[in-house]
């Protein structure tokens, strides 16, 4: 009975975080973008500085009509938002927040592989949406999504492999247990590659070619309305949370900090994750969109060689230490 309660409690916590954290990032994005652009952002909903704006948005989305285009492939069209969103929920369950087995939803032996594999499934949702909408712009968006995923999956995997080599394990908790402060300069190139490739996989600016609103309306999500569109938005913000948390765990030491690692470890994880999420928003405001050829060039001629160099460096240092 105790075990069942324990599992239920963990799942409930993971689910609650999954619902709340993306909204927090979304609201932060509203406000941070606004202030960087010299305006205030939403100010009325909820009273204090418009804190309830996203709740109001959610209510608005729920009230809208759920339209499926006549020429669309109905079932695939309706299934796509779920395929886009659910993988992030699964990934969130295995990310360790604090030291020990108590601060993670579920310990997975091959954690890195699980995380990267399941994140890759999420992109399938965008592809399904792009194809099933029966819309040229959606199809173009789907194509660009696929091209982007195929080129950025490799540097992301290589960067993650470098950390796995350094720690000698592919378990996320194992990597955190092996972490030492000097990993930070050692793995910094890998961290940058991982973060950039992750941004591209999430289709966040400056890699938002697949949803470039000035050319192809909103890419794969053009035909979506109401709650299903909201689910896609939620998937994007959940993706930001996951990417930042993963970068924190793999490269920034997770719950390790200058002090208070025993009791306040989870606070370090959250702090680093929030900082990275801020960087993601910052990049959106400050960088112009990359063109398709620039995007591919960045992946194949910059990120892949950098990731390979990082792996070589990791191997050399690892051998030298032993």
């Amino acid at each position, binding site marked *: 009975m105790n075990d069942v309660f324990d599992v239920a409690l963990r799942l409930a916590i993971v689910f609650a975080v999954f619902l709340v954290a993306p909204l927090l990032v979304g609201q932060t994005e509203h406000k941070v973008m606004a202030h960087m652009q010299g305006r205030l952002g939403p100010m009325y909903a909820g009273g204090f500085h418009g804190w309830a704006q996203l709740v109001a948005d959610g209510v608005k989305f729920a009230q809208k009509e759920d339209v499926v285009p006549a020429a669309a492939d109905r079932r695939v069209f309706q299934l796509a938002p779920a395929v886009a969103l659910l993988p992030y929920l699964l990934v969130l369950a295995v990310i360790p927040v604090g030291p020990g087995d108590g601060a993670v939803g579920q310990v997975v032996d*091959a954690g890195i592989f699980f995380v990267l*594999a399941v994140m890759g499934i999420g992109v*399938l949702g965008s592809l399904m949406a792009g194809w099933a909408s029966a819309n040229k712009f959606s199809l173009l968006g789907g194509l660009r999504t696929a091209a982007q995923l*195929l080129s950025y999956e490799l540097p992301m995997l290589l960067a993650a492999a470098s950390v796995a080599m350094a720690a000698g394990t592919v378990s996320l908790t194992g990597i955190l247990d092996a972490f030492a402060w000097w990993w930070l300069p050692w793995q910094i190139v890998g961290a940058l590659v991982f973060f950039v490739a992750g941004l591209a996989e999430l289709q966040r600016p400056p890699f938002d070619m697949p949803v470039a609103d000035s050319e192809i309306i909103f890419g794969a999500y053009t035909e979506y309305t109401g709650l299903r569109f909201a689910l896609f938005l939620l998937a994007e913000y959940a993706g930001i949370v996951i990417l930042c948390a993963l970068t924190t765990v793999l490269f920034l030491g997770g719950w390790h900090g200058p002090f208070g690692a025993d009791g306040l470890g989870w606070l370090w994880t959250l702090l680093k994750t929030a900082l990275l999420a801020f960087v993601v928003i910052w990049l959106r405001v400050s960088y112009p969109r990359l063109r398709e050829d620039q995007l591919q060039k960045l992946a194949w001629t910059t990120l892949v060689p950098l990731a390979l160099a990082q792996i070589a460096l990791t191997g050399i240092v690892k051998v030298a230490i032993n």
Partner: protein
Amino acid sequence: MLYTAPPLVASAAGDHPGFLSPSGVEIAFLLVGLVTLGAAVITVTTRQLVHAALWLVVALGGLAVEYLLLTAEFIAWVQVLIYVGSIVVLLLFGLMLTRAPIGRSPDADSDNRWVALGVALASAAALVWVVVDAFRTTWIDLDGPAQGSTRVTGAFLFRNWVLPFEALSVLLLAALVGAIVLSRKRDTDTDTGTATDAGTDTPPRPAPTGTPGTTDRPGKGEKR
């Protein structure tokens, strides 16, 4: 395949519980297997091209679950990562780039289907026979320590099977280089472009930029 190597600890035939009192894992294994088989059959019989690719996702995912049930966690996630995450995305990319009509494709059929069925049945029979013959008396204890964990798989791969592993990687590297060479050749000899490319029947283009247009879908890319 490399990863079907016999497990480290496999007890003899004498002390296994038998087939008449199946455990929960065995029942789940059977049910997931049926789902996988069904999805695979739909994949090759459906007339809707993109649906076939999506059913392939179900089939490959089912296979990953089977690996998981056999405690081969690492293999399961690699299966998802490579096949579902990359191969199917590549398939969908190819389909969308050439033609991906919504609804049935009347020409998505072949006169060779009976031959294909025969080949499929023959290879299935051969595989089943080999597996049954090789693992006749071994019994994996699923309740004990995991025998397909990352550590065990890594040790197997890099102690017992290093040579095949390296040979395979050299083979893949050769294929990679070959693909690059084949795809680059069109840039050098612009006048006899048809002799070099593999599957398309496009005339040699005057413009040297190699990116094909994404909108001219009808009539192009007969085979992928």
